[in-house]
C-alpha cells in the first residue's frame, strides 16, 4: 500500500527530470520515426514539434487587446495531431495518468477498508527529535491525493494545446510534474518536516510557473511577489512545526496528534497560530492574500492547477490534517474564523468589480478557500474537506474554461467578450456548471459542500452560547459565540455576493453582443474535451456526500443560502439587463474603484512595507558604499601613503643602507648591553 503511495509520488517526480532532460530528444526521435510514415502528407512537420515562436501567447492581466493571429488559433489544433510526437507532453501525461491510476487504487482500497496505513522508510537522526521519512494514507489523504492527480492530469492534457507554441513547454511540463509530486508529498506525508519539504517545493514550482513568461517584467514581478509573500507565511509555518514537534517529541503527524492532549495550552496555541501564518500565505487568506490575484500572470492552466485547485488548498489540507491540534486551541480557530470572514467578504466584493476574468476567478478562489477555513473554524471538518474537493473540481473547470475563452478572444478582459454562448457551446455549458457550483446552486457539487459548511456554522452559532450540551449531533469547537455568528452571517452574505459576481462574469462572457474583434470559434479539441470532462465531477461530485450524515443538505441553511444566491444573481442580472453592452459593475459608482483595487490593500502594503524596505535597502547600500567599502578602499590609500614614506629612504646608495644597518646593529647591541 505504502509502496503504491510512494510510487504515486515518485512517478511525477521522475517524470519532471526525465521530461526536462530527455523530452526534446524523445520528440526528435519520435518525429524522426514518424516522418517516413507520414511521407509528404505532413511536409510542414518540423524536427521538433515546438517551433520557436516569440511567446506572446502570454495572457497577462491588464493586457491590452492582442489581435489573435490566425497562426495562433491554427496552432493548438495541430497540438492534437502532434501529440504522439510531442516528447515532453507524452512523458508528463503518461506519468501523471499512471499516478492517477495508483492514487485511484489507493483511494479505493482506503474506501473499502478505512483506516490509516503508515510506512516509514527510515529515521533521520538529528540528535534531538528524529525525522521520519514516512508516508501515510488515510481517507483524507487518499481523497485529496486523487483530486490532485485528476486535476493535474486534466491540466497536463489541456496544456498541450494551450501552450502548443510555447518554446519553453518542455520545462513547463516538467515543472507541472514536479509540482504534482510535491503536492502529493504534502498530501501523503506522515511527517511534518517531510510535509514541509513538499510545501516548499510547491512554492518554488509556483514561482517558476507564474514567471513562465518572464519576458514581461510584470510577470516576473508577480512571481517574486508570490514567492516572497508565501515565504513570509512559511517562516511562521516552519517555526510552528518546530514548536509542535519539539513539544510532542516527534515530528510524525500521528505522534504529534497523539501528544496533543498532553501539550500545554500555551504551546499549542502558539504553534497553531504560527502554522496559521503559513496557511494564510499558502492558501491566500487575509492578510497575505495579495499575491494570488497577481499570480494570474502565469499561464491559465497553471492558475487552474496551482492557484485554484491544489496548492492553495494545501493550507486548508494541513489544518484538516492537524485538526485535533487546532481543535484543542480554540483561540487559533477563532483567529482562523475571523481571517476567513475578512477574506471571504472582502475578496468576494473585490471579485465583483474586476475587469479581468482570471482575476475574478482568483478573488473567488480566495473567497472559496475562506469558506473552507470558516468550515474548519466552526468544526465542520468533513464539510470543509468536501468543499476542498468539489472546489478543486469546479475551480479547475472554471479556470480551464476561462483559458479556452482567453485563447479564443485573445484577451483577459471581460469587456471584450460577449455572445460566446453560441460559438463556444461546450465551453459555455461547462462554465455554466462551474459557475453554478461556485454559487452553490442545486444539484451541482458546490451546493452540497457549501451548504454543509453553512449548516456547520449555523450549528456552531446556535450552540456557542450553551456550554456542555453533549447531545448535539456534531461537536463544536470552543469558539466565542460572536465569532461563530459572524462566520455564519458572512457565509450567507458571501453566497449572495458570489452569485452576483459569478452571474456578472457569466453574462458578460457568454451573453449579449460580441464586444471584442476576434473570430469566435470553439477552442481546440484537447482543451474543450478536458473542460467537458471536468464538468462531470463538478456536477455530480455532490451526490457522493449524501452518504455521510453531516454532509446532507439542511433545509434551513440551504433555503437561506439559495435565497441569498437568488438575490445576488437577480441583482446582477437586472443591472446587466438594463444595458447588456455595459459592465454591471459600473453601477457601483465610486465603490467600484475601491473594489477593483481590492480595498487598496496593495497600495497599503506598498506604503507600509515595500517603500520602507526599499528605503532601508538604499540606506544599506549607501552605508556599505560610504562606510564599509570606503574603509576597505581607504586601506589601500593609507598603505600607499605609508609606502610612499618608506620609499624616500630607498635612495639606491648602498653606503647609506650600510650605515643604517650598522646604526641598527649598534642600537641593538647597546640595548642588549644596557638591558641585560
Amino acid at each position, binding site marked *: 500500500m505504502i509502496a503504491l503511495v510512494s510510487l504515486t509520488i515518485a512517478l511525477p517526480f521522475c517524470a519532471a527530470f526525465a521530461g526536462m532532460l530527455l523530452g526534446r530528444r524523445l520528440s526528435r526521435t519520435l518525429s524522426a520515426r514518424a516522418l517516413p510514415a507520414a511521407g509528404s502528407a505532413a511536409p510542414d512537420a518540423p524536427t521538433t514539434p515546438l517551433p520557436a515562436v516569440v511567446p506572446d501567447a502570454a495572457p497577462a492581466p491588464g493586457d491590452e487587446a492582442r489581435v489573435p493571429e490566425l497562426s495562433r488559433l491554427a496552432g493548438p489544433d495541430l497540438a492534437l495531431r502532434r501529440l504522439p510526437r510531442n516528447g515532453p507532453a507524452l512523458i508528463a501525461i503518461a506519468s501523471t495518468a499512471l499516478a492517477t491510476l495508483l492514487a485511484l487504487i489507493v483511494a479505493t482500497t482506503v474506501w473499502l477498508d478505512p483506516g490509516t496505513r503508515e510506512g516509514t522508510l527510515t529515521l533521520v537522526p538529528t540528535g534531538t527529535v528524529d525525522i521520519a521519512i514516512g508516508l501515510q494514507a488515510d481517507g483524507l489523504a487518499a481523497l485529496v491525493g486523487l483530486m490532485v492527480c485528476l486535476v493535474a492530469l486534466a491540466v497536463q492534457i489541456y496544456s498541450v494545446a494551450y501552450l502548443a507554441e510555447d518554446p519553453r513547454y518542455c520545462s513547463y511540463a516538467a515543472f507541472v510534474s514536479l509540482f504534482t509530486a510535491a503536492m502529493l508529498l504534502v498530501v501523503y506525508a506522515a511527517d511534518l518536516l517531510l510535509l514541509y519539504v513538499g510545501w516548499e517545493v510547491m512554492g518554488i514550482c509556483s514561482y517558476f510557473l507564474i514567471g513562465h513568461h518572464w519576458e514581461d517584467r510584470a510577470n516576473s514581478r508577480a512571481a517574486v511577489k508570490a514567492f516572497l509573500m508565501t515565504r513570509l507565511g512559511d517562516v511562521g509555518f516552519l517555526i510552528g512545526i518546530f514548536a509542535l514537534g519539539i513539544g510532542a517529541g516527534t515530528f510524525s503527524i500521528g505522534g504529534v496528534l497523539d501528544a496533543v492532549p498532553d501539550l500545554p495550552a500555551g504551546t499549542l496555541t502558539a504553534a497553531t497560530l504560527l502554522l496559521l501564518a503559513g496557511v494564510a500565505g499558502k492558501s491566500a487568506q487575509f492578510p497575505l492574500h495579495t499575491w494570488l490575484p497577481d499570480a494570474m500572470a502565469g499561464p491559465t492552466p497553471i492558475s487552474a492547477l496551482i492557484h485554484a485547485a491544489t496548492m492553495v488548498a494545501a493550507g486548508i489540507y494541513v489544518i484538516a490534517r492537524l485538526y485535533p491540534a487546532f481543535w484543542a486551541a480554540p483561540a487559533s480557530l477563532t483567529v482562523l474564523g475571523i481571517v476567513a470572514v475578512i477574506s471571504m467578504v472582502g475578496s468576494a466584493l473585490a471579485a465583483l468589480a474586476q475587469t479581468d476574468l482570471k482575476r475574478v476567478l482568483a478573488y473567488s478562489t480566495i473567497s472559496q478557500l475562506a469558506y473552507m477555513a470558516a468550515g474548519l473554524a466552526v468544526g465542520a471538518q468533513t464539510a470543509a474537506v468536501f468543499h476542498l474537493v468539489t472546489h478543486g473540481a469546479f475551480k479547475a473547470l472554471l479556470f480551464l474554461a476561462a483559458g479556452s475563452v482567453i485563447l479564443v478572444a485573445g484577451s483577459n478582459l471581460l469587456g471584450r467578450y460577449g455572445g460566446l454562448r453560441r460559438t463556444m457551446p461546450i465551453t459555455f455549458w461547462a462554465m455554466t456548471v462551474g459557475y453554478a457550483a461556485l454559487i452553490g446552486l442545486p444539484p451541482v457539487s458546490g451546493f452540497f459542500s457549501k451548504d454543509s459548511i453553512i449548516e456547520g456554522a449555523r450549528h456552531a452559532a446556535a450552540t456557542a452560547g450553551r456550554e456542555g450540551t453533549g447531545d448535539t449531533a456534531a461537536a463544536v469547537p470552543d469558539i466565542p459565540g460572536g465569532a461563530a455568528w459572524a462566520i455564519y452571517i458572512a457565509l450567507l452574505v458571501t453566497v449572495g455576493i458570489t452569485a452576483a459576481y459569478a452571474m456578472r462574469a457569466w453574462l458578460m462572457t457568454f451573453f449579449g453582443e460580441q464586444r471584442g474583434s476576434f473570430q469566435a470559434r470553439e477552442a481546440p479539441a484537447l482543451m474543450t474535451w478536458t473542460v467537458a470532462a471536468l464538468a462531470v465531477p463538478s456536477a455530480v461530485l455532490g451526490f457522493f456526500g449524501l452518504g455521510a450524515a453531516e454532509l446532507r443538505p439542511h433545509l434551513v441553511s440551504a433555503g437561506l443560502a439559495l435565497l441569498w444566491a437568488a438575490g445576488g444573481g437577480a441583482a446582477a442580472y437586472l443591472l446587466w439587463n438594463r444595458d447588456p453592452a455595459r459592465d454591471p459593475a459600473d453601477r457601483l459608482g465610486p465603490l467600484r474603484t475601491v473594489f477593483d483595487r481590492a480595498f487598496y490593500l496593495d497600495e497599503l502594503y506598498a506604503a507600509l512595507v515595500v517603500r520602507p524596505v526599499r528605503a532601508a535597502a538604499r540606506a544599506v547600500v549607501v552605508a556599505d558604499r560610504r562606510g564599509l567599502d570606503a574603509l576597505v*578602499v581607504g586601506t*589601500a*590609500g593609507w598603505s*600607499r*601613503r605609508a609606502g*610612499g614614506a618608506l*620609499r*624616500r629612504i*630607498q*635612495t*639606491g*646608495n*648602498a*653606503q647609506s643602507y*650600510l*650605515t643604517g644597518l*650598522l646604526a641598527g646593529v649598534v642600537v641593538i647591541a647597546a640595548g642588549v648591553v644596557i638591558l641585560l
Partner: protein
Amino acid sequence: MHALYPLVVSALLFSVGVYGVLARRNAILMLMSVELMLNAVNLNLVAFDALWRDRLHGGQLLTLFTIVIAAAEVGLGLAIVLLVFRNRKTVEVDRLTELGEARRDPAEARRGADAETSAEPVAAAREGDGP
C-alpha cells in the same frame, strides 16, 4: 704580552675599515676597507691563538682560510668594479643608484600625488611603476 695591544690595534683597524666602507666613494677604496676589516679579524684570531696557546692553532688556521677567502673575494670584487667601470665609466658608489627608488622631477611627483588620491587604484599603480 698583554692582550690589550693587539685588541686595540685590531679595533682601530676595524673602525678604519668601517669608516672606509661607509664613507669612501671609490669602489676600489671600499674594497680595500673591507680588507682592513678582515685583517682586523685576522689579527684578533692570531692574537688569541697565541694568548691561549692553542695546541691545534685553530686561530692561525682560520686566519689562513680567511686570507684565502679574502683573496677570492677581492678578485670577485675587482672584477665587478671593472665591469661597472666599463659600463658606467665611473666607480663612484654614490652614483650607482639605479636599483633605488626612481627620482621624479617635482611636476611628475605632483601628478603622481593626484593619481594617488583619485579613486582609480589601477591607474595610480601604473603611475607609480613608471620611471
